[in-house]
């Protein structure tokens, strides 16, 4: 059983470092997916290369509603 201070430091160090590293890895993988399957790449299979209808590239407005509000987040 570790003492509270050591436990806190271990959790803080591994928690912050681990979260940052994990999300960095996920960002690299997301980037890789984008490169492997770029927009307009119409590979085989239904829907390949299609993109979903998206909001305008430069959102109109200060007043426009940005996104649907999820319920209890």
């Amino acid at each position, binding site marked *: 059983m570790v003492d509270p201070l050591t436990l806190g430091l271990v959790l803080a160090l591994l*928690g*912050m470092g681990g*979260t940052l590293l994990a999300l960095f890895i996920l960002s690299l993988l*997301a980037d890789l997916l984008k490169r492997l*399957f770029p927009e307009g790449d119409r590979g085989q299979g239904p829907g390949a290369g299609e993109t979903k209808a998206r909001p305008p590239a430069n*959102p109109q407005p200060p007043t426009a509603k940005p996104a649907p509000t999820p*319920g209890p987040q």
Partner: protein
Amino acid sequence: MTDAILAGLSGLLAGFANLTWQQAVMMAVGCLLLYLGIARGLEPLLLVPIGFGAIIVNIPNSGLMEPGGVLRTIYDAGVLTELFPVLIFIGIGAMTDFGPLLENPRILLLGAAGQFGIFLVLLLALAIGFPPLQAVSIGIIGAMDGPTAIYVTSKYAPELLGAVSVAAYSYMSLVPVVQPPIMRALTTADEKRIVMPAVRSTVSKRTRILFPIVVTIVGSLIAPQGTALLATIMLGNLMRECGVVERLASASANEITNVVTLLLGISIGATMEGARFLNVQTLIVFALGFAAICLDTVSGVMFGKLMCAATRGRVNPLIGAAGISAFPMAARVVQTVGQSYNRRNYLLMHAMGANTGGQIGSVMAAGIMLSVLAGLGLT
């Protein structure tokens, strides 16, 4: 005859006779939550059932939270089993568009920085003297993500569930009040005016479909204890993006989420019994929760400044504040603050990317913390 009438009357008056001051105060707190939800529109989906639950559980002799009582049954079935939070996560996944994040995956790092408050407050809670598992549950308020906070707290410190849940949802609704002063204080005028180029749609459908699958596999391998949270949010998102199970995606985002939200809210309210809730510990939990949201914002904005420096001024540090999860309020706050300094600057989609990154970040942070605890043999 007279005795029988008096005995019957005593049953009718028992509620008033047994009402304690703590129960009366908690009924007032329940009414306050109802007011905030109904009149002020603060997280009404949760605060209305929570407030109502807090009122009825404090009615003497109601037996709602006794073994076999209706609220106890709901609580045991959905909260203790952690079923409600994960069901809600499926709905959140089905409602979330990771498109803005996938446009610029590096923004995901802001979602990590926005979770640092969890660990800093965990340290604070340990320093104050909370036992490790309670400290973890208090720190998780910093995830700014209700289901994650409920999942972790119901697992490791169910006695704090009421305080942690109310703190988490209350502070989420206070994001527009709490964040702007911190964002303004930590950034220079030039940084606030940085214009980020418009987001162009460059994400293919295949990428959108594969992303939740890859995140589930890799993220769960990194933090196996967080699999339930990560997998459910990604399942919801996969159903949304794949386009072949629209009925399931729609049911997850609407009917299932609505029913579970009602049951979850009233169950949380039911944990707010006066005798257990009104104590100094609850006040400390609220104070630490407030520190968590502030520290999250500070770390998010500071990391945004780091990215700004690393990209030679192409990232507006304000979007770092959206890394705290609290979707989509934090992104809207960034847009509002950014436009107050440069009316031609539309940070919304970039902030949405950081905000959805924060959703993944909060779940990953919780999973990593639980996995480290398991590695230390504490769970």
